[in-house]
Each structure stands twice: as structure tokens, then as C-alpha cells.
């Protein structure tokens, strides 16, 4: 169970949940349907769980190229293991955990090949423009855009641990604490307190800058 966050129904009408957010309760049933040959069920799984996989990869600050390859590897492997996954209703945790392991492996091989390079420096915001982003560029929305960018900037400058945790927590729809635990290798019980601390820290940074 999630503690201290709004239920997903509270923001169902907001644009970022449009189209394809999977109710986590349905994940097991969707996996079973996909095993039985239902391509639409697979598509729904991708739409519902893709942001979680992407968040886990981004939380590890891979370069764009590495992030793309890890993301693909995770989904190819999920397709390959479909029908063999022991707890289909925990497919989100399976994906999060696989994304974590593959991300860590990339970081490990980078350190080995180029010990002085910091792969984290390669990180940057995706260049893909979404309809929402284009909208933000319009003049009426300039203030809103500025808010979002300032928030993002302060988030990016948090310490590694908080930045990582928040990057996973902010995926859409909100991940369960089991999924966060699988994504980051931290105990479920420590996520709530850590989350609160990290959000406070971010709030304090924003207040200090007079932002938001």
C-alpha cells in the first residue's frame, strides 16, 4: 500500500495520464492475456509501464545512447520471459529490477573502460519535443514553463540519492513502493521517510530561490 500520496483517481483528468495508464491491479491479467496471444494487452502493458522503465534508467543517469539501449533490452527480455514470469501481477517490479541491473551493468562497464570519465556528465534532458512542451513554448504559457524548468533544475541539483529516488517516484502512473524498491534496491520501509525528506529538501531549495 502507498502511504502519504494521493490516490491515482485524484489526477486522472490531468493531461499526463491521458491514454494508456494501466491500473496496477490489472497488470497480472494483462500479462496473462499477452501470454495467450493478445497483442492489445501487450500494448497496454507497454503504455502503462514504459514510463516506469524509463524513469529507472534516467535515475541512473545513463547517456542517451545507453539509456535507449537499456530500455530496449529490458522490454526485449520482458517479451522473452513472458509466460515464465513467476508473479505476473508484479511485472512492474520485474521490469524495474531488470532496468536497475542493466543500468548498473552499463555504469560498471563504463567505469572499467574509461575510469576517469564520469558518465553522469553525459546526462541531459531528452530532446524529443512533446505536444505539452510545444504548448509550453507559447507566450501565454511562458510563466508556467518557467516554473516547470526551475523545478526541474532544482531537482537535478539535489544529491544523488534524492535525485534518484524522486526520478523513480515521479513516473506516471505513480509507482508502488514495491516497484520503487525493485528499481533502486532500497527497502520498502525506508522509501516513505526518504521520500518525505527528499521532497522537503527540494521544497527548501525552491523557497531559497524564491521559485514557485
Amino acid at each position, binding site marked *: 500500500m502507498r502511504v502519504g500520496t494521493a490516490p491515482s483517481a485524484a489526477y486522472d483528468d490531468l493531461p*499526463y495520464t491521458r491514454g494508456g495508464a494501466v491500473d496496477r491491479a490489472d497488470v497480472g491479467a494483462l500479462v496473462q492475456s499477452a501470454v495467450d496471444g493478445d497483442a492489445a494487452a501487450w500494448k497496454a502493458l507497454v503504455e502503462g509501464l514504459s514510463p516506469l522503465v524509463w524513469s529507472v534508467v534516467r535515475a541512473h543517469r545513463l547517456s542517451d545512447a545507453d539509456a535507449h*539501449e537499456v530500455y530496449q533490452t529490458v522490454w526485449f527480455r520482458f517479451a522473452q520471459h513472458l509466460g515464465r514470469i513467476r508473479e505476473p501481477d508484479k511485472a512492474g517490479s520485474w521490469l524495474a529490477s531488470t532496468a536497475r541491473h542493466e543500468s548498473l551493468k552499463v555504469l560498471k562497464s563504463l567505469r572499467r573502460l574509461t575510469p576517469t570519465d564520469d558518465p553522469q556528465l553525459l546526462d541531459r534532458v531528452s530532446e524529443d519535443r512533446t505536444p505539452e512542451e510545444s504548448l509550453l513554448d507559447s507566450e501565454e504559457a511562458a510563466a508556467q514553463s518557467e516554473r516547470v524548468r526551475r523545478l526541474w533544475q532544482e531537482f537535478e541539483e539535489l544529491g544523488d540519492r534524492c535525485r534518484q529516488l524522486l526520478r523513480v517516484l515521479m513516473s506516471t502512473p505513480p509507482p508502488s513502493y514495491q516497484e520503487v524498491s525493485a528499481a533502486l534496491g532500497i527497502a520498502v520501509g525506508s522509501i516513505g521517510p526518504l521520500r518525505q525528506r527528499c521532497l522537503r529538501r527540494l521544497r527548501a531549495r525552491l523557497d531559497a530561490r524564491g521559485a514557485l
Partner: protein
Amino acid sequence: MNDDDMNDELEEFDEDGFDGALLEEELRRAAAILDPVPAELSRIAVDAYVLHDLDARIAELTFDSVVDAIPVRGATDVPRMLTFRAGEVTVDVEVTGQGLMGQVLPPQPARIEVLSGPQSAAPLTADAMGRFTTDAPPTGPFALRLRTGGEVVVTEWLRA
């Protein structure tokens, strides 16, 4: 949500003290705008459905030099060594800048495909000793599908 709504919410926020859930929601919106899943990646994941193959046996990765080997100080461009196992069949693979070199054990001829995604496969043949090579390294995630005897074995997907 218009600006007025947003301001109302923020006033409440300040009066009532810290509201973590609200800030998390703002971050969620920011992520959806500034760092969404790239559209081409979503498409590839949807297409990946064709990779499910309930009849093949999966050869699991049992050794990966990136994780399991002790690095040699000063050695650069060491080949990546991988071992996959499905029951009694083992596949050893070495990834170098020139391509893949591998062997099926116990030694046996095999028809092999190098998979690099939902769409593409490059065919190879392993000789009587089970040895095979490719002339280019994989550029992204890859898997090997082997037909040997009456059996199909697919190695776990891996990023080269």
C-alpha cells in the same frame, strides 16, 4: 489547470505547511514534459511483442565478464566474455570490436540467428565443433537463437 487554480493551491500549500504529495505531482508533470519516454522507444517496445516465444528454451546468462571477472589493471579493449546455459546446452560468446565468436557446447552443428530487435535477424551456421563467428559486433541489444537437434534455444537479451 489555469494559473489561478495553481495559485490557490500554492497558497494552501504555504498555510498548511509541507505537502509532499503536491510537490511530487508537480515533479510528475515536469517529468512528463521535460523527460518523457521517447516516442520511438515506445514503438519499439510495442513491436517487441513478436519476440515472445513460448516454445524456445531460454539460455540464461550465467557468466558475464563485466560483472563476474576481475579487471586486469591497464588492460584496455578486453573482449566481453559471456556464457549462457539452458539445461545441458552451453553457449560461450566473446564480443570484440570485430564481431562475435562463440561455441555451442557440447560441440554440435547448429543454425544460429543473431537477433538485434523485433525486426531483424542475421543467419549463421555453427560448424561440427559448434563454433561460429560474425563479422561485425552487435550495435545494441542482441540475442542468439539456436536450432540444434530438434530444439530451439534463445539466449537472454543482453546489451553488448
